């Protein structure tokens, strides 16, 4: 078949900007080298979906706290990131950036943002602040100790690359993208509120640390800095990053001891309307949590939310009805998982205890009795079939119900973990023994949660309500481990 020729066309949409590509031609670099390997600190892999319940948990979290995540718990960082977005956008555009639709272009855009995130961490450390949300702190401390000489803030290539996801911007990216006024909807281009927040942050900086447009119009050879963005900010763009760090604690990331305190009024006035607008689900959920009387545990809070008339008007009558039973069952299952993990390590990392031996342990039997009871409650709750991804939960509850003996109960849970767990598995059954699959330090055994803590902290900082009682209750669980495996 003859292929017809295609008419090609090209539209010139603006001035063509030549970007000096950071890649180095191989012909200049064909020499060999020999080396020793530097210490490798693998970025810890979060293994928090041991049961495969994350999708169901996220369903509830999206209903209650859309756009948040467990890491987005400091409203100050929204102000700081707005400042970072504003000035990195200027630098990125000066360096030739214009389009954000493709992966390479987004990576180039982020390359201008990342050093500013890390310089704020460095600024906080320089001020003497030792707590708060300071992601990448260990590397930045090394970088500071070594006189800011190591490239990329003393991070390895892998750490620096993954900071995009595990760094501060990664934690707040969904908020920045989805909350109107922060960005133009792309998570990158600052919108009106972000500009005002950025200006506020800038004004609160000591004069020598402030940025202004003139800094970026000084005849900089931008192509030279592509691929060396961190150096650009440290040496040229924000060379005053540490100036007055000790005098400017007010605009640093919030330290741990202040996380429940409201931010300054001026800042709250900008943040509260966008994060907790009238009739927004975040405001309604936060107010429900704040109003809850006589709550003493996370389970109590789930029950309050499930029966809230205000919430049901917004998210639908039946949507949250399953939350208490789901949370109770998930907590009971994690309690049993931690019990197994604890026993496994009591036998030593290299041993694999027979499941029959484990089944005789009274503590484990008690945990599995609680698990089965919680499973029965889940199976009795009406409307559980309507929960997206609820089949994984129901399947485990049914398996536990059908397992008559402790040996079968342990086996059923271990099989479920292996079949539905996400990421690395903790252990598996082999030849009727429980065999560990990760090192004893390799398990993150936290319970399934619904971003309620982030929501409560943001609400407290934005002055929506006093959230102390809810935050205190969240720390209490229905099932408490004497020896939690972490």
């Amino acid at each position, binding site marked *: 078949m003859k292929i017809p020729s295609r008419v090609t066309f090209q*539209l010139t949409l603006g001035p063509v900007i030549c970007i000096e590509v950071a890649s*180095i031609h191989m012909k200049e670099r*064909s*020499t060999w080298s*020999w*080396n020793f390997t*530097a210490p490798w600190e693998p970025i810890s892999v979060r293994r928090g979906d041991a049961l495969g319940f994350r*999708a169901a948990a996220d369903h509830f979290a999206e209903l209650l706290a859309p756009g948040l995540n467990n890491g987005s718990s400091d409203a100050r960082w929204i102000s700081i990131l707005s400042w970072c977005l504003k000035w990195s956008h200027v630098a990125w555009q000066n360096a030739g950036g214009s389009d954000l639709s493709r992966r390479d272009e*987004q990576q180039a855009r982020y390359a201008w943002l990342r050093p500013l995130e890390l310089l704020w961490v460095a600024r906080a450390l320089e001020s003497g602040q030792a707590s708060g949300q300071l992601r990448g702190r260990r590397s930045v401390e090394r970088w500071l100790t070594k006189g800011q000489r190591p490239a990329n803030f003393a991070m390895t290539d892998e750490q620096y690359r993954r900071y995009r996801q595990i760094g501060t911007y990664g934690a707040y990216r969904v908020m920045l993208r989805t909350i109107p006024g922060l960005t133009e909807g792309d998570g990158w281009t600052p919108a009106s509120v972000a500009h005002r927040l950025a200006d506020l942050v800038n004004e609160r900086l000591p004069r020598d640390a402030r940025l202004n447009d003139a800094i970026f119009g000084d005849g900089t050879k931008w192509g030279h800095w592509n691929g060396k963005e961190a150096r650009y900010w440290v040496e040229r763009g924000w060379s005053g990053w540490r100036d007055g760090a000790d005098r400017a604690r007010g605009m640093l990331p919030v330290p741990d001891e202040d996380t429940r305190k409201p931010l300054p009024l001026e800042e709250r006035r900008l943040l509260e309307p966008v994060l907790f607008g009238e009739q927004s689900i975040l405001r309604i959920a936060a107010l429900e949590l704040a109003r809850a009387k006589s709550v003493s545990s996370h389970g109590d809070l789930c029950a309050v939310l499930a029966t809230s008339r205000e919430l049901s008007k917004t998210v639908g009558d039946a949507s949250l009805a399953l939350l208490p039973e789901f949370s109770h069952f998930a907590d009971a299952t994690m309690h049993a998982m931690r019990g197994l993990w604890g026993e496994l390590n009591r036998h030593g990392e290299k041993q694999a205890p027979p499941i029959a031996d484990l089944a005789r342990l009274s503590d484990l039997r008690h945990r599995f009795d609680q698990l089965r009871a919680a499973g029965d409650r889940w199976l009795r709750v009406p409307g559980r079939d309507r929960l997206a991804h609820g089949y994984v939960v129901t399947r485990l509850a049914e398996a536990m119900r059908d397992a008559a003996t402790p040996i079968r109960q342990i086996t059923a849970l271990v099989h479920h973990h292996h079949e539905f767990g996400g990421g690395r598995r903790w252990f*598996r059954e082999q030849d009727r023994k429980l065999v560990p699959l990760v090192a004893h330090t390799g398990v993150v055994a936290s319970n399934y949660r619904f971003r309620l803590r982030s929501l409560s902290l943001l609400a407290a900082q934005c002055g929506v309500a006093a959230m102390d009682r809810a935050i205190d209750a969240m720390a209490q669980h229905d099932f408490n481990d004497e020896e939690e495996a972490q």
Partner: protein
Amino acid sequence: MSRPGWEDVLPSPSFGGSLHEAWFTTFDPPDSGLLVEHVLPSLLGASHSLSQDLKERSLFFGELGSALEALRGRLTVISSPPHADRKEAQYPWLWRYVSHFTVGAQARAVQHAKLWAFHWKAENEEWLELRVSSTNLTESAFKDQLQAGWEVKLPLAGRVTDRTRRTWGELIPFIDALADSAGEIAAARLQRLKTLLARVECPGGVTFIASVPGKKSAARQLKPFDVSEIHVMAPTVGDWDWRELSAWGADVGIGLDKVHLKWIPANHPWVASHGWAMSRKAKAALEDAGVKMESISNGSRLSEQHQDADSRWSHAKLYLLRSRAKRRLLVTSANWSRSAWGAGKETPRNFELGVIFESAWTDLETIGEPFDPPRTAPFCLNREDETPFSTLQWAQALWNGERIEFHLRSTDSSMPVTVAVSFAGGTEKEHRLSGGTLEMRWTDTECAPLSARFTQGVDVLDVNVIDIRPPAEFAKTPLPEVDPADAAALREAFLLRRYGGPAVDPESVFGARGPRKPSVAGGPAADFAVQAWLDARAAFNVLDQWRVALAQVAGDRELTAAVRQDGEELRTLYGRGDTPSCRLVAEELCWRLNEIA
């Protein structure tokens, strides 16, 4: 190049290029957790990371799975057969994408070399990166051990010549022997590496030193360097006897009193690692032969950056050769043992590979001081043979989508052999093998075969099933570790991105139900441009990128089939679009696919 660098152990994309093919050799079976969570995302320049957040995790596995699928048949790992009790692996699906071969198809062999080779491409340039080191593909090798390595990145010419290939010296016969030992499919992969080596000359001043099981002593390869003194640091010293040591010295052309072995004292921190071993018998033989044993003190450091707080133990194998006015350094995988080197008429048992070059680095000479018993005495440990004899010498399991073929080489043809196959989903089937081969019909793409365990008496040999299904069949197996409801959308989003389409938008991927339409320009026009024009340009850009990819793989049947399959999926995707540009692109893809059919 005299001073050593201090480099990240993780390989990463070079010079903005993308990975086209990779070969790894390792002694220990590769650690799938290390590959999935660190090595492959780094090599592929992944945008997403393994996170607790479900969407980010799904994007991570979607991106990784899509990238690995595009590279299927071009990611090769060759190791020794895993005779030791095998740890249950994480991510067993990995071996559908990464082919894991073992040596021993022709005769007993140990694969101890650590050669990693990467073929990079970017626009019109291609490069070959070679790494020769002491690093196995295991987490402990990366995290707990200090390794030494040599590396080079070379631009590839278009022309393939035998003269160019010969400049690589012993590396070529080493690859040939490895290919023979790892089976036919591995041989075809290694042939491609040899072709690349025929496109660029070996850098000047570099000589490869290779051991091949059953071939001449590799120590003889050192003789041309006219060695007058040698300083050795390696964590394992073999069970030499006096006769073997003498033969080794004669092969190298050096008196054993000119050999300086750098060794740890019994109170050295590296003792706790159990990584260093020399038997009392070997120590006595070395002393009898006049080898000078020198103590590596607790404070000894291998480079400026090597800190006291660094708790890793050295797994590096270094040999500093002095000859007249020159010093040369050998960076290798070879411990100082007969198995690694051979000696006299004794041939090596292992595949080993090293690189020798001139060096002004003298630290290895000065690192040792005489042992001073009882204050310092050489550490001795009798270690069990790492590769105990097994009747099961080599095995392979291949799945072509219709049947699984099993091949086994055993030293005992009389004893029955069973093979137990594990499938995705947890099922297992057991069969009896006769005559070293078996064919088993299997067409279930949802429950793909993952691994096979061969058992003969007390001996066990585990292998990962090598998936050789054609691309169209392979595409039927769901992406790993992602919700099946999101898998198709993820797959299409990353397919588009691979061909220059927009960055993956989580909102359009997750929760998208029903027929999906291709995202085109990536976002609305921000200026006065006409959206339809932008969409058309974006869609035709994807088509053009696909055509370029197709042209680049011309002549390679397997790769053409993979790109063709991508074209089929793009056609389906654009066929669902409701804009004129989508229809035009689908139409043109249809013509072009018909043309290459």
